[in-house]
C-alpha cells in the first residue's frame, strides 16, 4: 500500500509537469495546426530564468527574501522570459510560414530549437545548474499522507499545476478571449470572418502556452534539480507525446495525456522494469493509438470532400 501510494505521488508529480508542457503544444496546435518543436527550448529558458532570479535573490543558501516570495518571483521571472522567447518564435519563425506547406514550419521550429540550444550553451556553458531545492525547503518538510511523507516541493508542484489548469479551463470557457481561442482552433476562416483578430489570438495562445512552459521549467528545477541546455529536447518529446495521446488540440486532453504518461512511467518502472520503461510506455501508447486513433479526447477529424 505504501509502495503504491508512493508511486502514485511520483506519477502525479511527473504527470503535472508533462501536462503543463503538453498544454503549450496542444494550444498552439489548436490554433495553428502545427507542432511547435521549439517548445522544449522555451521551457528550458524558463528554468534558467528561474535560476537567474534565485541567484539574484542570494541563492539557495543566502536568500534575501522569504522563501515563498522567492518562489513566486522565480515563477514570474520564468513566465516572463518564456513568454518572450515564445513570442519571438511566433513572430519571426512561424508567422512568415502561415501559408506554406505543413513541413516548412516544422523545419523552422527545428532550426529555432538548434539555435536556442546553442545560445543556451554559449550563455550558460555546458554545466548543469541546480536550484538546490533541499536547501530551500528541507526534505523533511512535507505532508504526511498515511504511511508516506510527501515533500513540500512536490505538493507545491502538484497544487500549482492543478490551479493553473483550472484557471486555464475557466478562462477558455468563460472569457471572451478564451472564446476567441476556441473559435480560431475550431475554424480559423470562419472566426476571421466573424471579426476575430486571428493574429492577436495566436499571439495570446503562444503567450499562455509559453508561460505555462516556463512555470513547468521552474517546477522541474525544484523537484528534480538539474537544469542544462539540452533538457528541453528530451522533455519536449515526452510532452509532445502526451499532447497527442490526449488528443492534440484539446486542452483537457493535454492535461489528461500528461497525467497518463506520468503515471505510466511511474507504474511501469515500479512494477515491471526500469530498463524497459520507455519501451513499455511507448508500446502501450502505440497500442492505445491503434484503438483510438484521434487520442483520448481528440475530435475525430472531419474531412470535407
Amino acid at each position: 500500500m505504501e509502495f503504491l501510494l508512493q508511486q502514485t505521488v511520483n506519477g502525479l508529480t511527473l504527470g503535472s509537469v508533462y501536462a503543463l508542457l503538453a498544454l503549450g503544444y496542444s494550444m498552439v496546435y489548436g490554433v495553428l495546426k502545427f507542432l511547435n518543436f521549439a517548445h522544449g527550448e522555451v521551457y528550458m529558458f524558463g528554468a534558467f530564468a528561474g535560476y537567474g532570479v534565485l541567484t539574484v535573490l542570494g541563492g539557495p543558501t543566502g536568500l534575501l527574501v522569504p522563501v515563498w516570495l522567492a518562489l513566486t518571483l522565480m515563477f514570474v521571472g520564468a513566465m516572463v522570459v518564456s513568454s518572450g522567447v515564445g513570442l519571438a518564435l511566433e513572430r519571426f519563425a512561424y508567422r512568415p510560414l502561415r501559408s506554406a506547406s505543413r513541413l516548412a514550419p516544422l523545419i523552422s521550429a527545428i532550426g529555432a530549437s538548434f539555435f536556442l540550444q546553442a545560445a543556451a550553451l554559449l550563455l550558460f556553458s555546458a554545466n548543469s545548474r541546480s536550484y538546490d531545492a533541499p536547501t530551500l525547503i528541507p526534505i523533511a518538510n512535507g505532508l504526511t499522507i498515511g504511511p508516506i511523507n510527501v515533500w513540500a516541493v512536490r505538493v507545491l508542484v502538484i497544487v500549482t499545476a492543478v490551479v493553473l489548469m483550472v484557471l486555464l479551463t475557466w478562462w477558455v470557457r468563460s472569457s471572451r478571449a478564451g472564446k476567441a481561442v476556441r473559435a480560431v482552433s475550431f475554424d480559423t476562416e470562419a472566426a476571421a470572418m466573424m471579426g476575430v483578430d486571428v493574429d492577436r489570438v495566436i499571439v495570446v495562445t503562444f503567450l499562455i502556452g509559453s508561460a505555462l512552459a516556463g512555470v513547468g521549467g521552474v517546477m522541474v528545477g525544484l523537484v528534480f534539480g538539474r537544469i542544462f541546455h539540452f533538457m528541453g529536447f528530451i522533455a519536449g518529446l515526452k510532452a509532445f507525446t502526451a499532447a497527442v495521446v490526449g488528443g492534440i488540440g484539446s486542452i483537457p486532453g493535454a492535461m489528461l495525456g500528461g497525467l497518463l504518461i506520468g503515471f505510466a512511467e511511474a507504474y511501469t518502472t515500479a512494477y515491471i522494469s526500469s530498463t524497459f520503461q520507455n519501451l513499455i510506455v511507448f508500446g502501450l501508447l502505440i497500442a492505445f493509438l491503434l484503438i483510438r486513433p484521434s487520442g483520448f479526447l481528440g475530435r475525430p477529424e472531419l474531412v470535407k470532400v
Partner: protein
Amino acid sequence: MLALALVVAACGDDTGGDTTTTAGVTTTEGETDTTAGETTTTGAEAMACEATIGVMGPFTGEVAFIGEVQLNWFNYALDTWNEEMGYDFQMVEADTQFDVAQSATLAQQLLDNPDVLGVVGPAGSDQVDAAGAVFEAGDPDLTVISPSSTRSGITAQYTGLFRTVPTDDDQGPTTADFMVEQGAQSVFIVDDQSSYSTGLADTTQDNLETADVTVTRESVSQDVTDFSALVGTIPDDTDFVYLPWQVAANGQIFANQMAEQGKEAVIFGSDGMDSDDFTQAGSYIAAFAPDIAAIEGSVSILEGYLEQYENTSTFGPPVWAAARVIFEAIDRVCQAGETPDRANVQAEVRNTDQTTSILGSPISFTEDGDLVEGTFFIFQIQEDGSKTLVQ
C-alpha cells in the same frame, strides 16, 4: 562546386588552406601568443620544433559538460607548455558531439592533416572504437591518447591507442572489494545504458556475486530525469546503491529522491560521478586519481587553471597528463636532433617514464597502451562537500 572549393580549403593540407586554428591565442589575458622572443632553452632545437596536436571530444551536445572541461584543460596545458618551453605548438579542435559517425569522420580529417602528430581523445569508448578503426587503417603510427575511455581491452585492439586512466578491469574489483569489506550483503546496481556504465556495472556485479552478495540490477536511460519510481523499488535492506553513471548531476537527483523516500542505503559512485555536481554526504566515490588539490605538485597547476576557467571536474587532469605525454615526447625527439613525425613521436611516447604526474602517480605505458600504475582511489564525501580518502 563552391562547396567543393570550400571543403578543399577547409580540410586541405597540401592545397594550402588555413586549416589549423591557433588556440594558443584564445586566452583572454594580456599574455598572448608565445612570440619568437623566447627561443631560449637549449641550442639543440634552434631549428623550429613544430607540431600540431588534435583534441577530440564532445564539445557540444548532450554531454558538453565533459567535453568543455576537457577542451579547457587541453588549451591550458598547451598554453602553459608553449610558454614554459618557448615552443609554438598548435592545436586542432574536433568536436565529436559524442557521436560515433562524426568521430570516424574527424579521425580521418586528423589523419589527413600531416602536421598532426598526436591526438588527445576521444572521450567515450564508442567514439574510441569508431575513430580507432579509422586510425588503425590509416596510420597506426599516430599516437592517440584517450583521457577518459575506460572500457577494458580497447587499447589492445588499436596500435597507436593509449590512455591516461585506469580501466574498468581495475575499477570493478576495487569497488566490489571495498563494499564487501564494509560488510555489504545486498547491493542495488543501476546502470545508465551507456557502454561505459554497463561494462562497469557488469564487472562489479560479477565480483560481488562471487563474494556471495545479493545484487539487484536495474537500468535507466540517460534521458530519464525522474528516478522516484525506481527509488521506490529499492529494497529496504539494501546496503549500497552502486551508480556507475556518466552524469553526476543525475546522481544527485537520485540521492535527493532516496532521501525523500527514506531509503537509507549508501550510494557508491564510479569515477564519472566524481564531480562538483554530486555532493551527497556520506556517499563514496571511486576516482582514478587522488584529489589533485591534495597533491603538492599539482596544486599550482590547478590554481593556474582555475584562474582562467571557472570550473573543473574529474575529466580534466587526465587530459593534462595525456597532453604532456605527447608534448614531452615531441620535445625528446627534437632534443635528439630529429624532425618530429608520427613514428618517432609514438616511439618516444612508449618510452614515457614520468616519475610523477598531475595525477600523483608515475606514468608509463604497457605494451598495449594502458597505464602501468593505474589504480582507483575511494573517497567519502563529507558534510561540507569535501572528499576524504578512504582507500
